[in-house]
């Protein structure tokens, strides 16, 4: 129903090569997240799939059928944009009805689907308002509603939550996840927020400069990042990297330890350093430890109650089996 295959797809804008040859398969019903730093080509990739940009070479297949030269409307995909892209001159109802009107869906069927979508998205009371009279979250829901009623083969989301405030973002995240569970339709979701990626995805695709660095489930990426880039990108706070003697002793160019895999103590440990800034989150505290002789700064996640102050001496002990080793090129050893 919604299996999407990219085969040696490339994209360049004039001289600039944004996507080098790239292969990727997205299985039917999967929730796939494209994640990567700004400018790495996530949106471009999504727009190639949507048909809003032409591929420079290669092939895109949807359900085994070549869709490379199909127009966006003929691909059976729905897209939710970062800016929502609602039609400002139409009421919420008309917005949601628009794709059906274009497809020539009969009136009563339109009404049924609109009511269904409105009920599912808590929009029933707002159907006659204009987008300008809605809050950001409501607008986002309208955009999703407009996508749902088309009953597409796959949904494409381009950073749909980045314009919302933190609390709303968490709520909408859950709603989209639930929607996916309910519809079981393929979803491709672009974000540069690795928390969104980790919490929502069945499969994460990490991109850097158009290259796929790694594809895998959230936990695979967390546990066995293929290289330093993925290791640093997935996980929050970032993994600590240590080069030099300590790494050499383990037969690597660099080793990486996540902040949550380092135990801190005021009395004894493998490494020692001075406490810099301590970020108290309540449940946890992130300590920035300086003067360890290992790296500029090591981040450590400690219990929220650990009584340390700025400038205190502190001892750190990494969990040996959670240490990641990388060679000089950054590949995992």
């Amino acid at each position, binding site marked *: 129903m919604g299996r999407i295959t990219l085969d040696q797809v490339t994209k360049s804008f004039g001289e600039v090569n944004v996507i080098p040859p790239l292969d990727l398969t997205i299985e039917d019903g999967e929730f796939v997240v494209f994640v990567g730093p700004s400018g790495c080509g996530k949106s471009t990739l999504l727009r190639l799939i949507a048909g809003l940009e032409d591929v420079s070479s290669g092939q895109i297949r949807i359900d085994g059928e070549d869709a490379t030269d199909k*127009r966006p409307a003929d691909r059976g995909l729905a897209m939710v*944009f970062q*800016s929502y892209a609602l039609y400002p001159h139409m009421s919420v109802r008309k917005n949601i009805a628009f794709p059906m009107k274009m497809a020539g869906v009969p009136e009563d069927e339109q009404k049924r689907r609109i009511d269904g979508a409105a009920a599912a998205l808590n929009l029933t009371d707002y159907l006659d308002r204009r987008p300008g009279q809605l809050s950001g979250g409501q607008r986002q829901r309208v955009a999703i509603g*407009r996508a749902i009623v088309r009953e597409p083969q796959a949904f494409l989301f381009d950073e749909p939550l980045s314009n919302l405030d933190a609390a709303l973002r968490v709520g909408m995240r859950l709603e989209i996840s639930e929607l996916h569970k309910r519809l079981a339709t393929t979803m491709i979701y672009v974000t540069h927020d690795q928390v969104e990626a980790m919490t929502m995805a069945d499969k994460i695709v990490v991109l850097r400069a158009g290259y796929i660095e790694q594809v895998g489930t959230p936990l695979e990426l967390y546990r066995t990042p293929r290289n330093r880039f993925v290791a640093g990108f997935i996980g929050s706070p970032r993994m600590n990297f240590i080069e030099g003697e300590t790494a050499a002793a383990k037969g690597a160019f660099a080793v990486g330890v996540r902040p949550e895999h380092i135990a801190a103590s005021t009395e004894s440990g493998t490494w020692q350093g001075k406490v810099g800034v301590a970020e108290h989150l309540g449940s946890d505290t992130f300590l920035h430890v300086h003067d360890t002789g290992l790296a500029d700064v090591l981040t450590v996640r400690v219990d929220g109650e650990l009584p340390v102050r700025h400038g205190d001496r502190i001892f750190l002990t990494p969990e040996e089996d959670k240490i990641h080793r990388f060679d000089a090129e950054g590949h995992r050893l």
Partner: protein
Amino acid sequence: MARAVTNRRKAVTTLAAWLIGIAIFFPILWIIVLSFKTEGEAIKAPLEVLGSPWTLESYATVQERSNYLLHFTNSVIISVGSTVLGLIIAIPAAWAMAFVPGRRTKDVLMWMLSTKMLPPVGVLVPIYLIFRDFGLLDTRFGLTVVLTLINLPIIIWMLYTYFREIPGEILEAARMDGASLRNEILYVLTPMAVPGIASTLLLNIILAWNEAFWTLNLTAAKAAPLTAFIASYSSPEGLFYAKLSAASTMAIAPILVMGWFSQKQLVRGLTFGAVK
């Protein structure tokens, strides 16, 4: 964060602004005054003019002598017609330039505007000959076509600057939603651009209404708009101030009133490209 402005300062500004405003408006005010005077009174010194009796005589004379209604109708048909025709051609063009910009889009736009910089007289004779051969001289249709071409670059430029402010994502959403190009322009772009289109419409009606090269040169009588009507009072009637004033008032009043009522729209239209 408006700061408290002292009343004294405000009074000084008020005085200055009103003086300048009245000075700029004065010529128009003056022809309105003169149009209600007799010829004899109209050429007197200003203070005497104001003191003299008011009369509608000049309007009656002008009405008698010229077919104002015909020229007015011509002006309306020609200016509205050419603007609407221009919009129909310009909307798709501006869509293309704003939403599918190519490397040469800016150059094309500049080229279009530059066609307006050529002195129109350069092409007067050829256009005249073409018009003569096609029987278009002194026809409203012919003049409408010429004014469409004359104002097309400005219409395209104004629409382009307005369309550029419309996020392309919305049109892309329409495309994803299955809208054909025609539907995308008809149901999404055009309704969203109503303010911009309205301003463009207004400004171009004004420009076409006031256009005074082609309207003077390609019409004689039956298709002559108000610009030509007023030119007929140029001489020797020019010395008949009251009649000239009445005719002038009649020629400018329609557009002046329209302009005043649509002032806000108009200014917005003029400033799309000028103000971020």
